[in-house]
């Protein structure tokens, strides 16, 4: 008998979706294509120019999320004030109509951030291949689906062929075992991973998350972790599906029902890494050693524990890193050696595809309940979808946030990338639950500190970056 090495979860999904090999490049099938207004207009224009149809409109789902305003959505896209955003939104409306694609328009309760909507609708399922013209597509890996961000040319390619051409990535397993301390969750796990391997550490890999601390995470937590995988350089993150996954999926609009569910379940359960599977690289992290984390600089790898000080650029090992750290400190208006809790915040943003799901809002509400947002702080909550917003309102979370002095806004990507009117003003400092602290990301000259929803809630109340453990 020939020895057959075990397969990783990634290997299994890859093998299952291979369509053909063409000149050494693999063509693999895409089960679900999510699209939005910003990265698709040029793809549809390309299809029109070549007179090509969309191969599987039924495997394509459209939302409007990146540049929608977070108020007045019921007025419709024609009322959007920003002329360019309006044209882009109108272009999507026309494209989905012309090509017969299902669409949740702005204002529809099912609309929201694409990476919140897919799972919420049950469109995201284990063992699937999923793409979207957005780097945070990695989010859907939480279900054991191979999900990756693609560029617009590839969006056009998937629309036309329902496949993607790619070479296989390497396997990296991150094992997180143990029990986290109170106040620490999936966001801190993700920041700990990025701190450990750096923003290019995952380049060329697909990351599978394993270990007891991952098993203990909710689906929302797993989505947060997989979402931030791209910030570690890997295009996709994966968590093997288990009971937590199936419980989440049961009864969602697009999940199989009855006999179909019974048929799907054993298929989904086949997606795990074999015990003897080979990983090209392995990393182990002790969950109990992770403190609440925040970023201090302009790269997601610029991470410190909340009890720590802003690092000294001289402490970095290469001239390039020292220069980057100096530049980051200047941009962020911080000095080396300053306790990070001294950083006064002007804006607090709870939202984005990283942290805008119901569990995130519940956790943040628990911190702010009975407390007030500091006088000098503008704090806002932007739920991930209309359904998340409705659920939160049913639970009275909106009342808690509003009573504390938060704004309670309508769903969208909002201040995470500031394509809509929600921006961090120049020079202001934002405690943000989003995913990127790049220069200018949340607004020109705006200063971003990434952190978990509970840490952002604590910062809103304290008026400066604060340790959530003082508010538990």
């Amino acid at each position, binding site marked *: 008998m020939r020895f057959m090495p075990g397969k990783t979860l990634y290997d299994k999904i890859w093998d299952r979706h291979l369509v*053909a090999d063409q000149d050494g490049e693999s063509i693999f099938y895409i089960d679900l294509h999510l699209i939005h207004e910003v990265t698709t207009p040029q793809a549809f224009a390309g299809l029109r120019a070549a007179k090509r149809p969309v191969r599987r409109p039924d495997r394509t789902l459209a939302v409007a999320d990146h540049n929608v305003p977070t108020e007045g959505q019921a007025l419709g896209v024609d009322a959007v004030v920003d002329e360019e955003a309006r044209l882009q939104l109108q272009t999507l409306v026309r494209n989905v109509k012309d090509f017969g694609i299902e669409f949740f328009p702005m204002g529809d309760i099912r609309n929201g951030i694409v990476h919140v909507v897919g799972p919420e609708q049950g469109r995201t399922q284990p063992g699937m291949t999923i793409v979207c013209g*957005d*780097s945070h597509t990695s989010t859907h890996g939480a279900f054991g689906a191979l999900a990756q961000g693609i560029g617009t*040319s590839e969006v056009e390619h998937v629309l036309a062929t329902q496949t993607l051409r790619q070479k296989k990535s390497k396997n990296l397993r991150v094992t997180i075992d143990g029990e986290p301390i109170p106040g620490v969750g999936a966001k801190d796990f993700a920041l700990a991973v990025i701190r450990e391997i750096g923003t290019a550490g995952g380049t060329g890999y697909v990351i599978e998350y394993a270990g007891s601390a991952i098993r203990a995470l909710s689906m929302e937590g797993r989505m947060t972790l997989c979402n931030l995988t791209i910030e570690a350089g890997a295009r996709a993150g994966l968590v093997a599906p288990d009971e937590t996954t199936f419980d989440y999926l049961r009864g969602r609009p697009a999940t199989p029902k009855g006999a179909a569910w019974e048929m799907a379940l054993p298929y989904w359960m086949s997606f795990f890494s074999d015990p003897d599977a080979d990983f090209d690289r392995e990393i182990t992290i002790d969950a109990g050693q992770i403190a609440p984390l925040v970023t201090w600089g302009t790269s997601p790898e610029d991470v410190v524990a909340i009890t720590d000080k802003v690092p000294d650029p001289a402490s970095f090992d290469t001239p390039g890193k020292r220069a980057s750290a100096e530049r980051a400190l200047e941009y962020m208006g911080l000095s080396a050696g300053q306790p990070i809790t001294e950083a006064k915040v002007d804006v607090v943003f709870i939202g984005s595809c990283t942290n805008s799901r119901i569990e995130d809002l519940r956790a943040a509400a628990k911190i702010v309940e009975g407390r007030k947002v500091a006088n000098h702080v503008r704090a806002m909550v932007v739920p991930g979808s209309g359904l998340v917003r409705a659920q939160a309102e049913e639970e009275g979370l909106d009342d808690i946030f509003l009573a504390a002095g938060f704004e309670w806004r309508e769903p969208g990507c909002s201040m995470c990338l500031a394509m809509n009117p929600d921006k961090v003003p*120049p020079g202001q400092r934002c405690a943000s639950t989003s995913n990127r602290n790049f220069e200018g990301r949340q607004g020109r000259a705006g200063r971003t500190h990434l952190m978990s929803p509970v840490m952002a809630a604590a910062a809103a109340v304290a008026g400066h970056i604060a340790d959530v453990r003082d508010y538990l």
Partner: protein
Amino acid sequence: MDAFTRLDAKIAPLPLANIDTDQIIPKQFLKTVEREGLAKGLFYDLRFDGQGTPRPDFVLNRPEFKGAGVLVAGDNFGCGSSREHAPWALMDFGIRCVVSTSFADIFYNNCFQNGLLPVVLTADQVQALMDEAKGGNHVVSIDLEAQTVVTPSGQTFAFEIDPQRKEKMLKGLDAIGETLQAAPDIDLYEMKQALANPWLEKA
């Protein structure tokens, strides 16, 4: 897609690591439905101050780097957002090749869809190229067929590139047209999947 074979062009150094696609083209320029005209947004916050006045010290604003066709930059170039507007903006500005020690996966892939050549060299080679490029008005030669970079002083650096990607870049091939040649395989795959995983059809 434009084919890329050989390029002799002025080189501009950008000695920063982790240049993300938000820096390459900020969000306000993504609200377009066109591929063209994005040069105006390239490195916007590095090129212009808050008032929209060009920053005279930024490399691409300096006269000795005017018309540069090759950029040499620090590690992990193109990280962050998947926006293809980044290679579109570079191309529209006249940049046809970026040299670095490493590129982020999605950006790297997007380059090949657009005839923008990403060249990976070692840290020492990138440093040497930066040093030679510093003064401005220096021309570098990139030969994709031979997989070489010839520096302004005449040093030759070889680089690695995936053979399939190289071939497509040399010929400027359209990936969709090529994949559609495998349409019978896609049909077959869909038939098999409909039988094995019928619930996916009703999604």
